[in-house]
């Protein structure tokens, strides 16, 4: 039996974080499953639980110039209703879980859960999203890539709360998302892909390519992207086999109950090829 805290203000939550070790619970859709017990028995939480679901400050979305500031405890359903959210992120969210789970699950939860198959993550990596971590002593900003260290492992400190996700917008004019799963609802990704690009009439100006569920963390290779940037659209088609070959050693999936490494790798590279082929259309 553990203590639970239900603060309505962020300050209050940060004060609790500063004074004792807690487990943060936003939507609970992952935590309640991971820590589930036999039917009728208490879920197994070994530390006091700090609920974030009543803190309105964490549920706001603002646009500031070319950046969206998204509160970490906003639910996936609310993100789908929000005009400011880029369509490609909405596409990813629509394929996550089910309506009932999306009504509880939060963006911050998907990040802090740090699953290799977290479906908002490829988008956040591809856009170079920045996370805001607050504590009583101040605030830290870091890229999502620096924040997630491995499955379930993040850089969050015991006195911190992830409060905001800052997403640059309008930086791309081509966007593609693909999730491969066993069924449409409630399926964890076998693999996922986000490709974003800014393409002018003549060439690729910028590109972000991310693969989910094919490694301990999301796979993004900026050094390969650098080789694509600046390529003329007329030359791109000829370069695609070489690009795919460069990505080939970076995709290192595992066999597990959801899929096989061979399948994951083959399909990831085919989707990459498909995406690159759409850039000059």
């Amino acid at each position, binding site marked *: *039996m*553990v203590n639970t805290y*239900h603060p309505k203000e962020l300050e209050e939550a940060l004060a609790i974080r500063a004074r004792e070790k807690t487990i943060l619970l936003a939507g609970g859709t992952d935590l309640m499953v991971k820590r589930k017990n036999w039917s009728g028995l208490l879920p197994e939480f070994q530390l006091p639980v700090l609920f974030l679901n*009543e803190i309105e400050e964490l549920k706001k979305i603002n646009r500031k110039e070319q950046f969206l500031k998204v509160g970490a405890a906003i639910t996936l359903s609310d993100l789908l209703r929000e005009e400011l959210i880029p369509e490609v992120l909405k596409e990813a969210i629509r394929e996550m879980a089910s309506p*009932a789970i999306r009504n509880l699950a939060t963006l911050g939860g998907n990040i802090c859960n740090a699953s290799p198959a977290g479906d908002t993550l490829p988008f956040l990596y591809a856009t170079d999203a920045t996370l805001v971590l607050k504590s009583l002593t101040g605030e830290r900003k870091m890229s999502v890539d620096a924040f997630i260290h491995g499955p379930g492992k993040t850089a969050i400190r015991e006195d911190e709360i992830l409060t905001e996700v800052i997403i640059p917008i309008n930086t791309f004019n081509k966007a593609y998302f693909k999730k491969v799963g066993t069924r449409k609802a409630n399926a964890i990704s076998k693999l996922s892909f986000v490709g974003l690009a800014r393409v002018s009439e003549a060439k690729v100006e910028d590109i972000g390519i991310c693969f989910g569920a094919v490694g301990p963390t999301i796979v993004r290779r900026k050094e390969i992207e650098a080789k694509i940037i600046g390529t003329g659209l007329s030359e791109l088609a000829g370069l695609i086999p070489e690009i795919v070959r460069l990505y080939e050693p970076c995709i290192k999936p595992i066999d597990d109950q959801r899929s096989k490494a061979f399948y994951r790798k083959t399909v990831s590279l085919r989707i990459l090829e498909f995406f690159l082929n759409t850039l000059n259309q």
Partner: protein
Amino acid sequence: MEKEITFILNNQSVSVQTDTMRRLLDVLRDDLGITGTKEGCGEGECGACSVLLNGKLVNSCLIPVGSIEGDEVLTIEGFKLTKRFTVLEAAFAEAGAVQCGFCTPGMLMAAEALLTHNPKPEEAEIRDAISGNLCRCTGYNMIVEAIQIAGQRGDGLW
């Protein structure tokens, strides 16, 4: 942590003295005798425990009861008293959308959540709305049809 938790269940205020981390599902079934809400998988995959929380469809097996202080919970027992339920009930019967019945309370809550926002849904929208509710008997087509019929018949109710 033991605490008195008060919330609105089916339009009536209820208080339970219980551990705040207990699942809403267990409090409903074991403490309050609300057994229309079923436990299937206990991990949010099957939707048998679906209820409406402040009008939104949720899985009651994923909700620690301490987090719903003051909130409104609607289960099939409360929904049963509405005219909208009568329309859905008749439509489910007509389409043959109930076989063993275990998924039905959750299905009806999902249907109510959908029709409230979208009284005349397309087939694809219905399939999406019930995508978190598993039915191992019907093959879903009859349920989709039932919700369509209810949408047509329930003109103005939703």
